[in-house]
């Protein structure tokens, strides 16, 4: 048997068959055996997805090992050692904390420490996005055409509508923004959704006929 058959052709065929089952069940024959097959495949998907996360975690640990082993200079090695040490330390410490409590990750101590460390850092880094946006708006929003005038005007008007002090003195801003949401935004959003839906359908059909290159690498070994 040619290598290409079991390395590429069968997986591509599997994609087409599985996608086909879902499509046929949805559009054409909603019969019980087909529905049962679909449910079974969905259950497989949930499990495979979970196994994929375990795979990712193993790869993450391998990544730390590889990066550490490849670190060249002393300074870089020290830094990598520190980073990997904190990562593995955090993993083990919180892992043991969960294991030490019958409620594992729902335990009181785990929750308290998790909120203090993990949530707080997530909040801190999550608050780093605004300078990028503010910078983009400040530096890039230059009104030079009708399009840029439109986006800049809507941007400012929307901001003002969400400033309570402004709406208290200029309540007329509220219906203006409500109109923007209901008319131009709704129209553009509908077009955007229809457009991307068509693109997605075309990709789906290409997958069905095995002509979608984004689904699989070409390499045969």
């Amino acid at each position, binding site marked *: 048997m040619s290598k290409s058959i079991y*390395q590429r052709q069968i*997986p*591509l065929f599997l994609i087409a068959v*599985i*996608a086909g089952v*879902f499509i046929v069940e949805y559009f054409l024959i909603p019969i019980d055996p087909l529905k049962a097959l679909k449910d079974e*495949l*969905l*259950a*497989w*998907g949930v*499990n*495979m997805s979970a*196994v994929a996360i*375990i*795979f990712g975690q*193993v790869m993450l640990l391998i990544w730390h090992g590889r990066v550490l082993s490849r670190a060249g200079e002393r300074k870089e090695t020290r*830094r990598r050692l520190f980073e*990997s040490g904190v990562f593995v*330390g*955090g993993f*083990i410490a919180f*892992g043991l904390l*969960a294991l030490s409590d019958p409620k594992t990750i729902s335990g009181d101590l785990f929750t308290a420490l998790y909120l*203090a*460390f993990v949530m707080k*850092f*997530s*909040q*801190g*880094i999550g*608050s*780093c996005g*605004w*300078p990028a946006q503010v910078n983009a*708006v400040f530096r890039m929003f230059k009104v030079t055409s*009708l*399009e840029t005038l*439109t986006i800049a005007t*809507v941007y400012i008007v*929307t901001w003002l509508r*969400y400033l309570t002090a402004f709406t208290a003195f200029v309540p007329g801003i509220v219906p203006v923004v409500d109109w923007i949401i*209901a008319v131009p935004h*709704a*129209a*553009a959003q*509908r*077009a*955007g*959704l*229809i*457009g*991307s839906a*068509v693109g997605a359908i075309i990709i*789906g059909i290409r997958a069905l006929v095995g002509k979608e290159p984004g*689904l*699989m*690498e070409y390499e*045969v*070994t």
Partner: protein
Amino acid sequence: MTPAEIALVWIGSAISLFGLSFIWFGDSIFFAFGQQLYLGAACAYTFFTVWKGLSSSAFTPISAGRVTLIISLIVGALAFARLTRWRWAARYPVAILSGIGVGVTFGLTIRSQILVQISGTLTNLVQVKPDPISAILILIGTLTALVYFTYTREHTGNYGRIVKIGRLFLMASFGYILATDNILHADGLITLLQNLIRDPLKSIGIVW
């Protein structure tokens, strides 16, 4: 508050600052510490979540006799074949998951992204909502913005003019969603500052 709770509030605030410090100091040792601790701790959390998930979606049903699910675990584990010379075997879980993804998307996309959107546009017209002119504007906006998303013709001449109208609608929409997204992030900063300034002081009894 107990001393332990006060300590946690102050430690939490310090950790938040490690994250925020990124804007001014970039990749500092504090940022790296917070980052790696977050990644490690959250990975441990996820490990237990995934394990719990697998228990209910795989181990329990398998022990109850639904043996076909064993295949899903075996095929899923083929992802590890990427680490061996039989790396092509990892294409099987990818193929099954892609097949599910493509299949699931198909019907739902047609329903929620095409039919519901067309129906919405027509509803505006039939019910004359919000007003007759606006209802017609929605129709024009939807059609012209959709013309923008065509790729076989260059956007020049009369066709380009239609696209230009569509682009105006898109611009208005992007202006709105960008502003609301900015506000969301601004609120994130405000929340953080409020927590950073008030919570530690509140924990030691300073409230104003």
